[in-house]
């Protein structure tokens, strides 16, 4: 893989509805403007023309399983013909259980998608309702089974803990059911009450109560315990995989490798600059229609900032940790102090979060930030 090669990310900004906890850039039109969106995306691809072949392709959202297959095909073909997609590249598509039927599975397989990330989120109907998801637990389980038998190289199931009304006992039951489903990869996120969301408003009004920080810690530890004893490796703060199934694309974020984000609100990093696209679909489209880069932010972090970002993202990797070199002079004193507190292991210039440090990662980072 040459240094300039970038993983490709596409943000599909449409959903059937907005979940109350979501603060992602997206729209919920009655009818998705499939063609117009794909056209704009192709324009952005042509404009950015990243160096290929792309080692990974990841379509996230939003709800990419709402992308009409012929339009998705148009994009995938354009990427292959334009910059190229490397042989054996991981090609991931996010999907909601409601859309995963046999036709969809066959269609995406035919396009070369070899990994699906399924937004299951919860395995109980009351929790799904609390999250304002529109599928049922049975829908989710059926979708997982369909993916398991379809012949993808890998697939992943997303779960959320810290759901309003969740208890430690109910979460343990969900984890047992998730393990039984046998997904080779699990992303386990803590529900975050983001400012400006409907959830934040409901919490502020007292209409909804979310688990407190201590219960969140218990839930996090319960997941780690249940999944690791079932053979999963906890290889990143929020991700678990059976051997050989760690996500390739997401590693680019943690390892500081270049990626090009396409679509509204997508982010990119070319090794020198970070940028962010207009989060609003309309503004993103308008910029592209004028042949301009649809960006709202672009900055080249200075050396010190870049060094901290590298450590910040690298520390998320629980398998390898991150090497402080070549910036060890700056970070080692704080790292030694954190190691003395038992939060990280320090081997030479390499640091890695310990079990005790895992839940206090932000404190470790604040200490390293100095």
């Amino acid at each position, binding site marked *: 893989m040459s240094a300039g090669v970038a993983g490709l*990310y596409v*943000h599909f900004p449409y959903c059937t509805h907005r979940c109350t906890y979501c603060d*992602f850039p997206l729209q919920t039109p009655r009818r998705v403007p499939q063609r117009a969106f794909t056209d704009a995306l192709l324009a952005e691809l042509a404009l950015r023309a990243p160096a290929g072949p792309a080692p990974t392709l990841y379509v*996230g959202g939003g709800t990419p399983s709402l992308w009409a297959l012929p339009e998705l095909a148009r994009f995938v073909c354009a990427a292959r013909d334009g910059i190229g997609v490397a042989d054996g590249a991981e090609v991931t598509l996010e999907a909601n259980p409601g859309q995963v039927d046999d036709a969809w599975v066959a269609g995406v397989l035919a396009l070369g998608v070899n990994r699906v990330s399924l937004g299951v989120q919860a395995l109980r109907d009351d929790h799904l309702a609390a999250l304002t998801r529109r599928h049922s637990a049975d829908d989710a389980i059926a979708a997982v089974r369909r993916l398991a038998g379809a012949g993808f190289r890998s697939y992943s199931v997303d779960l959320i803990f810290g759901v309003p009304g969740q208890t430690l006992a109910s979460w343990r039951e969900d984890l047992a059911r998730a393990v039984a489903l046998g997904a080779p990869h699990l992303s*386990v*996120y*803590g529900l*975050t009450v983001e400012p400006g969301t409907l959830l934040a408003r409901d919490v502020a009004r007292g209409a909804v109560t979310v688990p407190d*920080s*201590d219960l*969140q*810690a218990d839930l*996090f530890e319960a997941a780690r315990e249940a999944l690791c004893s079932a053979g999963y490796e906890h290889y990143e*703060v*929020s991700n678990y995989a059976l051997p050989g199934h760690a996500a390739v694309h*997401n590693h680019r*974020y943690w390892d500081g490798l270049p*990626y090009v*984000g396409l679509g509204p609100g*997508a*982010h*990119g*990093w070319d090794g020198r600059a*970070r940028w*962010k696209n207009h989060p609003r679909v309309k503004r993103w489209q308008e910029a592209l229609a004028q042949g301009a880069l649809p960006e709202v*932010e672009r*900055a080249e972090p200075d050396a010190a*900032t870049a060094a*901290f*970002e590298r450590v*910040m*993202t690298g520390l*998320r990797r629980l398998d390898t940790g991150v090497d402080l070199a070549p910036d060890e002079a700056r970070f080692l004193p704080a790292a030694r102090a954190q190691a003395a507190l038992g939060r990280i292991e320090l081997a030479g210039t390499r640091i890695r979060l310990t079990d005790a440090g*895992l*839940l*206090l*990662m*932000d*404190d470790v*980072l*604040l200490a390293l*930030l100095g």
Partner: protein
Amino acid sequence: MTRKSRSQTRIPRERIRNFSIIAHIDHGKSTLADRLLEVTETVDKRAQKDQFLDKMDLERERGITIKSQTARLVHTAPDGLDYALNLIDTPGHVDFTYEVSRSLKACEGALLVVDASQGVEAQTLANVYLALEENLELITVLNKIDLPAAEPDRVKAEIESAIGLETHDAINVSAKEGHGVPELLDAIVARLPAPKGDAEAPPRALIFDSWYDPYRGVIIMMRVFDGSLKKGQKVRFMAGKADYEVLEIGVMEPDMTPVSELGVGEVGYLVCGIKEIRDARVGDTVTDARKPAEKPLAGFKPAQPMVFAGIFPVEGHEFENLREALDKLALNDAAISYEAETSGALGFGFRVGFLGLLHMEIVQERLEREFDLDLVTTAPSVVYKVVQTNGEEILVENPKLLPPTQNIETISEPIVRATVHTPQEYVGAVLKLCEERRGVQKEIAYVGPSRVMVTYELPLSEIILDFFDRLKTATRGYASLDYEVIGFRSDDLVKVDVLINGDPVDALAIIVHRAASQSRGRVLCKKMREILPRQQFEIAIQAAIGGKIIARETISAYRKNVTAKCYGGDITRKRKLLEKQKAGKKRMKQVGNVEIPQAAFMAILKTE
């Protein structure tokens, strides 16, 4: 006649009227003053910002007057002659009683402005008594007469029974609408006496206000009682014991307008190139340096700070900036005092003395706003007089400096005479509150068919301690409060220390009555538990008297501080969140390894 020629006209003493406006805080004093200026064409209506006389932004925002401002209005009376009406504005808050009394001393009369829908309040009454002490002629003005809720007859009856003033010649006004203002101006001319004085005697002028102007030095507002003052004259400040030359003398119209001389009864300003406001204090007498008056005008009294608080920069290296800021503020505020203080918990800062709580808030706000400082202010405490076993008497301005119990013979604290005006249905609640706060009842009197005036002697420390909040709650906001320090009284007082993880935090120490110490200690620990953010380790909060622990609370360590979410490649956002967290920590004071937010220092003042 244009404004310019008016100011040039010398109006004889018989046609001068000097007056103040006495009113409760929101009864419309400033609006009425604006209207007087407008009707006499002292300011152009278009040029007029609302409430012209309140110059400082802070005052305008809070709707109160801190520094008094003055204006000379020229009014043509029904006799066809021009009269000079000197409006002497008075500060409207309890902390500034002395300044009010000086302003009133400069007058022959006052307008008593009462809101026709609300009636007499404690503060109005306090100032009316000051005015009556000075033998001022009072004109009763019922304001806000345009409001549907106005009840002029009820309010008049209240004024008669509460103050004993005749109200048959009261003037109905709507300052907002301008109704009744010309009639009021005529009444000022007709009913207030002209000033008296000896034009041939050595000059004596009373300073009733002064402020610092960065370009011209101290500007003095004064009223000439005897003789006259001129430009170029050598003058002496009798209490300040310093001589200066008059660089400029003039009148406020309301902008500063120079004149050559001010004689008996006239009111105006002096510029003498004075660098520090301490050299031209309110209440001092200005006389001629070569031919001085034998005796100053009566009543000079230097401001006595009664309330003290520690002010510390959040960032230690800002200490010098804080010193500079205080030096600059003191140029314009003779009432504050400050000296450097070192706190084990808060580092280097200042112990600052104030006239009262409002004064403290104003200073704190000005420091933060005008000098852009991030400050931690400790809870205010009063000054204590301690007689030690060795017979030595000391003043303790900071609870942490209280000598050990075995060295204390007696401790005394400032006592105020507090007057509460309340609707009668809340009298029970007011008495209960005053009794809880160690009050000694002095008087209960009806001031109207349904309003009661309750007078208590109370420790000032109890007033500082959320008394006003509790009073407002107990009376649904209907009561008003005024108080005045009358002396010191000894009591059984003890120091309560707050320990965080075993270490006493000096800035959290309080002095309280022994009988209340247990419950105060408990409340204090509970408050700290609510306010201190959870940290990475357990925090023990204890209250102690001497070495004895009287209350304890624990804050368990937090277990989780991690974002279990990746933001899809949005690395910048995550980094910025961390940087923000870091900046937030910096704004808190670190005591040992515990971060203490500003709110914790003020929590000492909450009793429940």
